[in-house]
């Protein structure tokens, strides 16, 4: 009886967490998302090519639901925390690379900007825990 009760309790505890993280796919533990370029603190004149690096996972087209794969999202000057239960927003600060791009030409206004990569799954949800790169700061002259 006690076992049954414990099982029920365990089920009750795990179920809601499953419901909340219904989309949350797990990325491999050794997966690394990083900027090939630019480096943190770089000073850049004008437009530049931003290159994304992903280790131990594959880059796919959004909508393709393959194991251990996702597509890049670049967050420019985003300060709000990432909501793992919502698709990664799509606006001028959240740039999507659903065609499987691994680089992008950026033209940012002069000044300091933060850049961060977030890997999204087939439906643009972040992984859980989110697979994100270091948040870097660049200065545009």
């Amino acid at each position: 009886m006690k076992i049954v009760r414990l099982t029920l309790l365990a089920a009750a505890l795990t179920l809601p967490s499953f419901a909340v993280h219904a989309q949350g796919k797990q990325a491999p533990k050794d997966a690394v998302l990083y900027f090939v370029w630019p480096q943190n603190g770089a000073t850049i004149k004008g437009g530049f090519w931003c290159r994304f690096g992903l280790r131990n996972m594959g880059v796919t087209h959004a909508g393709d639901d393959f194991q251990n794969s996702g597509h890049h999202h670049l967050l420019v000057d985003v300060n709000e925390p990432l909501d793992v239960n919502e698709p990664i927003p799509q606006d001028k600060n959240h740039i999507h690379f659903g065609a499987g791009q691994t680089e992008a030409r950026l033209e940012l206004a002069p000044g300091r900007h933060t850049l961060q990569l977030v890997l999204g799954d087939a439906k643009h949800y972040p992984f859980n825990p989110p697979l994100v790169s270091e948040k870097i700061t660049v200065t545009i002259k």
Partner: protein
Amino acid sequence: MRDKIRDINSARNAKLPPRAGTPRRLAAIVAADISGYSRLMELDEEGTHVRVKRIQRDLVEPSITEHYGRLVKTTGDGFIAIFDSPVEAVRCGIVIQQNMAGRNTSLPKDHWIEYRIGINLGDVIIEEDDIYGDGVNLASRLENMADPGQLYISGGIYEQIKNKLVCGYESLGDRKVKNITDPVRVYRVLPDPAAVKSRKRRDTVLVLLISLIWLGIASGALWYWLPHSKLRIQTNQVSSEVPNVTQAPVAKQPSQLSQSSISPTIADQQARQQTQPLPSAAPAEKQAALQTPLATQTSAIREPEMNALRGGPFMMGSNDDPSEKPVHQVTIKPFAISRYPISVREWNECFAAKGCAFAATGKDDAPVTNVSWSDAKQFVAWLAGSTRKAYRLPTEAEWEHAARGGTQTKYWWGEEFQPGMANCKNCADTVVAEQPVKLGSFKPNPFGLYDMGGGVDQWVEDCWHKNYQGAPSDGSPWLDSDCTSHVIRSGSWKNDARYVRPANRDSYDTNVRYPTHGFRVALSP
């Protein structure tokens, strides 16, 4: 290395009688040149010369030696090297490219020295200070094809290295090369191997989509020619679902149609609205089911409600965002645009007729979402095919003209944002649980159009351009031969008030679906 080659040559010369006096051998040929060299020289002749010399001395020559290659010759802006091993040749190319990328980072873009590199495997004639043969020409052609900072290899090289070198390869297909008879298979070497899979898949998706569009058009045509009795049955089924529809906001707004002369389409729509039963009028249902086919004898498909617009000149763009500049005058030809974004019901009729690729989820009277530009094109192709009317996506200029509703202010209702006017993030006091909300839940603009700003993002026909430099001024779509991203307008319920502005514009990948993206349709008279 140079000695070694001489050895081979002399050995052959010693044993064999001299043929044409030219030793041949198979080699991996690396051809490289600096892109925009003359521009760089123009900028700073001496500085560029010194830098190029230094790069050749510090990077190019040591890299070639390190990979057991031989520098055959240097030209002003490039070099040719040969390698015994294709693997070493490609490695050397990658080292040079990566090093150059690193060297350039600290410099302004217009001072970048970027090599384009082509590598080919060929049987060549080797002389003391030069090499000859079409294998060399092909390496140069590959180099010419490559973008700055890129490394292109021929199929021959690829076959040798594909399982030996861990990097990504993107097939660019068979390319016709000047003065070389047979097409040559070309590969781009990518820094990240993971990038390849997706590119291949993207091509597959593209092919699939194109074939689906064709299928859509074909089935649309087929649909049209089907026996009429079948069409009638279909119509009855459709109209029996009518009680779910709430036509109330439309019925209240007939005056909105006075914007201009009413096209036959709209007259059609009105006739149909009159015959459609009210949600509560259950007995009228059967009667309507009989009448509706009469009212829509021209086609079996329930067409979107359209508002005809007179067109004319307007000022497109704004100074609020770099992408919206410059503000420029565009003259719009008369056209009609759907009063609402396309609904889930309308989309699913297309799916049921096998004109669209997937079944949309959500309430029937909510806007369809999660459609890519290609999906939207499928829908309009199906709609145009099955109605034999020139349905299409609106152009970007038409969309903005329609969204402005004859105004030139920041929002169609004025310069300041007003809560409750559009479905956007933090735009109302109450949070709506289920999004996107029903079509037509907010006030229409002066042209009688609903949800032009907020609600769902809306695809238009145009390719994405980062601003309006060079935009057409006649309201036609601004297209490129190959565009991977298209324009979305309106902003969605997940974007804030800035995105509701009629001038706001953004882009998204052509073939990618996203949960806030929908569309509306246009019709040429």
